[in-house]
């Protein structure tokens, strides 16, 4: 099948790649652009390990086609830190030990960032239900919620 030329913006950088029209955005990010921070946990939209934002909207990149990225703004976990300055969510995840194997972490961070963009002061249950689509098999979620609450507080203060 002939490949399609895609021009898009990923983490603020203009990028181009050639995509098989059947390739998912997740596969394009990982295989074409070497952005392997987004993970495949299921490939069916059920685990959130592949979470990215497209024009600010949180999506499962395993359910989006690579060609749909044309002309869009994509943000992934690799774009969260500014140089060596970690995003407050990233810092708080380290501080609160909100990760173990770390495989779910990129997706959860991207999803949490999207939540805080929409709602800077979420309640505990708003966080719980927002992140319900991001599975984590290791942590039991408690520290994840504390880390998000703490980061939200810091970002509101800042």
């Amino acid at each position: 099948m002939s490949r399609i030329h895609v021009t898009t913006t990923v983490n603020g950088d203009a990028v181009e790649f050639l995509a098989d029209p059947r390739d998912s955005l997740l596969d394009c990010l990982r295989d074409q652009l070497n952005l392997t921070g987004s993970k495949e946990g299921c490939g069916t939209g059920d685990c959130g390990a592949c979470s990215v934002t497209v024009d600010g909207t949180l999506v499962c990149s395993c359910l989006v086609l690579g060609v749909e990225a044309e002309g869009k703004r994509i943000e992934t976990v690799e774009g969260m830190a500014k140089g060596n300055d970690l995003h407050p969510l990233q810092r708080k995840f380290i501080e609160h030990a909100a990760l173990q194997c770390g495989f779910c972490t990129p997706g959860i961070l991207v999803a949490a960032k999207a939540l805080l963009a929409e709602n800077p002061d979420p309640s505990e249950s708003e966080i719980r239900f927002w992140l319900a689509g991001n599975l984590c098999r290791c942590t039991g979620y408690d520290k994840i919620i504390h880390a998000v609450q703490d980061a939200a507080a810091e970002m509101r203060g800042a």
Partner: protein
Amino acid sequence: MTMGKPLPHDSAPLHVTGQARYADDVPLPAGALHLAFGLSSCAHGTITGMDLAAVRAAPGVVAVFSAEDWPKGFGEMPDCSPSVLDEPLLAVGRVHYIGQPVFLVVADSHLAARKAARLGRVAYDELPALLTVDDALAANSRFEQGPVIWAKGDAAGAIARAPHVLEGTFEVGGQEHFYLEGQVALALPAEDGGVNVISSTQHPTEIQHKVAHALHLPMSAVRVETRRMGGGFGGKESQGNALAIACALAARATGRPCKMRYDRDDDMMITGKRHDLRIRYRVGHDAEGRISGIEFTHLFRCGWSQDLSLPVADRAMLHADNCYHLPDIRIESHRLKTNTQSATAYRGFGGPQGIVGIERVIDHVAHATGREPLEVRLLNFYRSNGTGGPGSGTRFGGPHSPANSQPQTTPFHMEMEDFIGHELVAELEKTSNYLARKAEIAAWNSTNPILKRGIALVPVKFGISFTLTWLNQAGALVHVYQDGSVMLNHGGTEMGQGLNQKVAQVVADVFGLEAAAVKITATDTAKVPNTSATAASSGSDLNGMAARAAAETIRGRMADFIADKHQTKAASVRFEAGLVKLAGEHYAFAQVAAWAYQARISLSSTGYYATPKITWDRVKGRGRPFLYFAYGAAVTEVVLDTLTGENRMLRVDILHDTGTSLNPALDIGQVEGAFVQGAGWLTTEELVWNGKGGLTTHAPSTYKIPACSDRPPVFNVALWGKPNREDTVGKSKAVGEPPFNLGISALMALSDAVAACGDGSAYVALDAPATAERVLMAVRRQQGNV
């Protein structure tokens, strides 16, 4: 001291930035190929024909292998089993479950391989498939000649003499590991016919061994590397063998790098899960609930191959007592062979199945005697040893009386030396306010007809050591470079538990350095040989000790050298805060390393550790299989909707024993995650096979692990914090598996809530997993309208 500090996971900065590299993230060399298995669609049958022409013709396909079309010169079909050579890589002549690999596709992309794998046409002559415990029992289909039976005392006699006797049957479901990162392996042809393998495995040595066997190479020609896994939980102890072997063979056949990654559905269809089982019990007790005699029958569904089923079922027997002294006991364990995925290691390794059995019995006895379950639990607890404290004999008569000063023994005749259940449970009862809340919940339930709350306190005792005694060994390799930096390798693998960080803290302490000064790299069979799986919670116990031994050897040489220079005794040299101190002088650690190097002192050492004291005769069921026990207890409160069976946890309080913690932040994380996983096992996680033997819950859309929304709003976790009485590294205790069992309290709390729906005459008898459907049915039974 860096030991005991709550430092974050050493990879945390990489995890949060997406830089942490998992096996699937390793950049592939040009020309790499991708593999996929074609799977059996028949649960038991003879292969009568295979038409793979469409597979071969599919775009991107480079090669296709099957038993009928096996490359000449490759010898016999390689075996993938960790135990008894009963798992051919690809089915030979016969298939034994739906999902068994039948042929192997090698293609130029992951997607091409997977698509082509769907095009195979395999014809079968179907044979009767044994799918259930009953099928297997009727056909006497089992591993080993007959059931394994261990006994202590005279259970039948004690039951006959008991004033009350109860019987019951309890179904306990299996569990999919659902490591978030699926199975993956990559094989790179090396010079001289060797192969380098990158694998997401808990057991690099096993991968090395199996790949060497498959390729007819010495183990020295195979190098296996594991940097990290995206979760393992036992599912990567043996289940990665097939991928690594397939990649190595395909790499040999094509001369190109080969990679294989199961997508989630394939992973769940192919790989083994936690063993499900049926537990039958017969118990004799008195009016207060004191158990005199007990008989258990464990009926394990082991699946089509033996894998690790025998030691798993053994461990269930070894945990049939949990915290309770059962003087007269008989356990009969059947390891049934069925036409389903081969059940395998899963966090707890059978222990949780044993523990949930006795907890069910206690719940049943409490109902029968009308007593508070906690009282029945305490009444049956082992005595505390030699402390004079609670449970040492002053509270209860009978077998627990002070006159009986003989140490109590477990059902496998091991003396109980370290029981701390009484103190720990008393403390948790206080901090959780269990008894007062229980009364408050009863009052609340009496005025709420639709919603019902329930609460339960469940204690846990878990034995630490591999029951296969020779596995209790570990090696490590430590280098100090001339600039004072330190590199550490050990045989354990990192799957999220923070093992590397803990071991680095141990080594840093030996040298008086900060943990960050110790660099840990990938687990590598070329650096540390003959390692055991990172399993049985033993990772930091074994590897921490081995690494400490290596570091102490180097420190000893550095101390000798610098003491000699100052004409003083090596014993007076101290390594602290990045300095080496002696005779009023102090030098930077790096300075001493540089001098030692120039003085031609070796700054590299291996270290080795073998667990002391353990002896175990598995045939007789006697001995000391464990160096020590880890303890814990949890109180869980739930609420359920009697109209739908839906339920959720409201509050969880945990007190858990990790000895003197090597790293409280990591340990608390392990306890929380294990509890939630254990609660998932017994509540929402349901594996469903259809009548033909096909697993229908093979994706997260149908198989429900706990989600963030299930997190209990109040979740209090504390560590007991008292040192291990055995000489373990830093007096710590293993933490990976024991707290998994705390999840049993969620099931017991549901049982309590369901009990509140009726008049109390009938026992709830809730099977596991207690899904909303099962809870609803149990509620209906209590309400008298089935």
